[in-house]
């Protein structure tokens, strides 16, 4: 609980240093804290996309606490790496990450999605410093990220651009328009990560109403990205060593943009939510909240338990 989350000094072209035991432990702890703050925020505000925010937590931890060259005290630093949350509905996970990384105080998280808050339901760059793009209508963030990556290259900056895309989002045609152009321009400082949790808001019904079929056959998403000329890294999106390793590989330019297909579990970390599509937007009740905090290794404080 007291382990320091402070990131190591930026190591832009050699991310191998993140693959050590202490670093992986630090990043894993960061991911756990992201899940805890996400869960707290959703419970406190009574709103939010919990399932997808929990599936992306390990990826956000690796990026914000390891890989991204950023300055939370100087969010507009022109040479910073960019991050675009194309799956903008999973904003609460990003807000928890930004707060833990020092962009704003944790105290602000409970304002999420309420009047006047900088923490809008979907990320709004005009309100909250630290957001590199406003997103929320699916398929768009990756186009913006392609423009950012190309723009940074035109400006002669060596910053990288990262974009997190949902697997359901990959049903949007715009994703493939962007994929085509990114490969055409050989944007090898662009890294897309697909949060491949195999569930979406409603999806395709399987054996019964509780059961959902995966949107694609196994391997289909990987094959599609490869066909569009991207370097594809297919990993376990909850294995911190695998995530860090893939991000390190992606940082070695080979003339292609890289996509990391991160195989994840929606609702990861909460036994009652994992792999259940209804937790796309479901809000925990008091009993689930207390149990969830325990499962996330963070028993409720007295104040929380009394709520």
């Amino acid at each position, binding site marked *: 609980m007291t382990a320091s989350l402070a990131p190591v000094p930026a190591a832009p072209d050699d991310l191998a240093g993140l693959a050590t035991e202490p670093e992986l432990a630090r990043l894993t702890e960061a991911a756990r804290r992201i899940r805890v703050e996400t869960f707290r925020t959703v419970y406190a505000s009574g709103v939010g996309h919990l399932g997808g925010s929990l599936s992306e937590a390990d990826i956000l931890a690796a990026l914000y606490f390891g890989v991204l060259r950023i300055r939370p005290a100087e969010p507009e630093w022109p040479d910073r790496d960019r991050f675009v949350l194309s799956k903008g509905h999973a904003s609460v996970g990003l807000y928890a990450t930004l707060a833990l990384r020092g962009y704003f105080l944790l105290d602000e998280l409970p304002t999420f999605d309420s009047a006047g808050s900088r923490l809008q339901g979907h990320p709004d760059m005009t309100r909250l410093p630290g957001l590199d793009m406003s997103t929320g209508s699916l398929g768009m963030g990756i*186009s913006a990220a392609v*423009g950012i*990556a190309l*723009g940074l290259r035109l400006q002669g900056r060596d910053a990288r651009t990262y974009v997190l895309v949902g697997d359901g989002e990959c049903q949007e045609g715009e994703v493939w328009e962007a994929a085509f*152009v990114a490969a*055409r321009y050989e944007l090898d400082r662009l890294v897309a990560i697909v949060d491949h949790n195999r569930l979406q808001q409603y999806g395709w019904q399987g054996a019964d109403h509780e059961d959902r079929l995966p949107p694609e056959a196994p391997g289909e998403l990987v094959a599609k990205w490869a066909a569009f000329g991207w370097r594809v890294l297919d990993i376990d999106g909850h294995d911190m060593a695998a995530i860090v390793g893939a991000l390190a590989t992606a940082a070695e330019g080979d003339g292609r943009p890289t996509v990391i297909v991160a195989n994840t579990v929606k609702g990861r970390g909460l036994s009652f939510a994992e792999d259940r599509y209804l937790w796309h937007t479901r809000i925990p009740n008091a009993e689930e909240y207390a149990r969830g905090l325990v499962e996330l290794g963070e028993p409720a404080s007295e104040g929380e338990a009394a709520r």
Partner: protein
Amino acid sequence: MSLPLGRAMREVFGETVTALADEDPRVVMLDGDLGVSTKGDIFQKAHPERYIQTGIAEQNMLGMAAGMASVGLLPFISTFVAFAVVRPLDQIRVLIAQPRLNVKITGGYAGLFTGRAGKTHQIVDDVAIMRAMPNMVTVAPADDEETGQVLRWAAAYDGPVYVRLVRDATQHLFGPDHRFEFGRATVVREGGDVTLMTTGSQTPRVVDAAELLAARGIRAHVLHVPTIKPLDVAAVVAAAERTDLVVTVEEHSVIGGLGGAVAEALSEHRPTRVRRLGLQDVFGQSASNEDLLDIYGLSAARVAEQVAAILAAA
């Protein structure tokens, strides 16, 4: 008697954005594979590294423009209005207008003249759509001279802009002494019998129509409204006060464009009878430019005839 033909707006577009790029390293052009038609090819020859061919994928193109603007570049869009405004409308809404990013949506081929491409390429409701969008401003220059001035203004303005350009040569109306001012309408002819309000490439034809009306003894007051949003309400009210009847004329639907904007403003500030000439809630069709203007009542002769008929019936 009628105004002389000027240079095509698309030529002026290609040359002006190229000249802007000569002066400003932030200027980039994103082309949706229509560089030959829009004259984006002029830009490519001069600044190949800042000309971005995005392929036939306009939703992504507008999204890329937002991303490029977010890192401090100044993107101009090169495609037809049909593909610059309507097809990527949600990208404009979410990625450009809402974050107020500095993208110049410079769509050619607005209105009826599309080289006989017909209704799929003719857009007659773009002003209505863009005018309704928060944070977006909408400007429609009248001729070659004003097109160059509007593009230079757009580059200097910090925020999203829609510039409505047409394909073919319009009549030359303004001399080099003309000064486009953002948000200001211009009286281009004085008169006391009827007030005509018009915009974009329709303005020169309305000036010619006023000449035809003068031959019939009707003195028309003509207000050119290049900035449709924000509307110059004071100028619209002042022009309306000259006569009892206002007629709006535009190469656009009568719903929601200049006619709609003028009717909204006058009903709030100076209730006045407004008649709206333009496309009467219909799509266009393939035909020669001359035939299109005749069919939809937008040639100088047809405008004069309709205005005279409205006055005779009044």
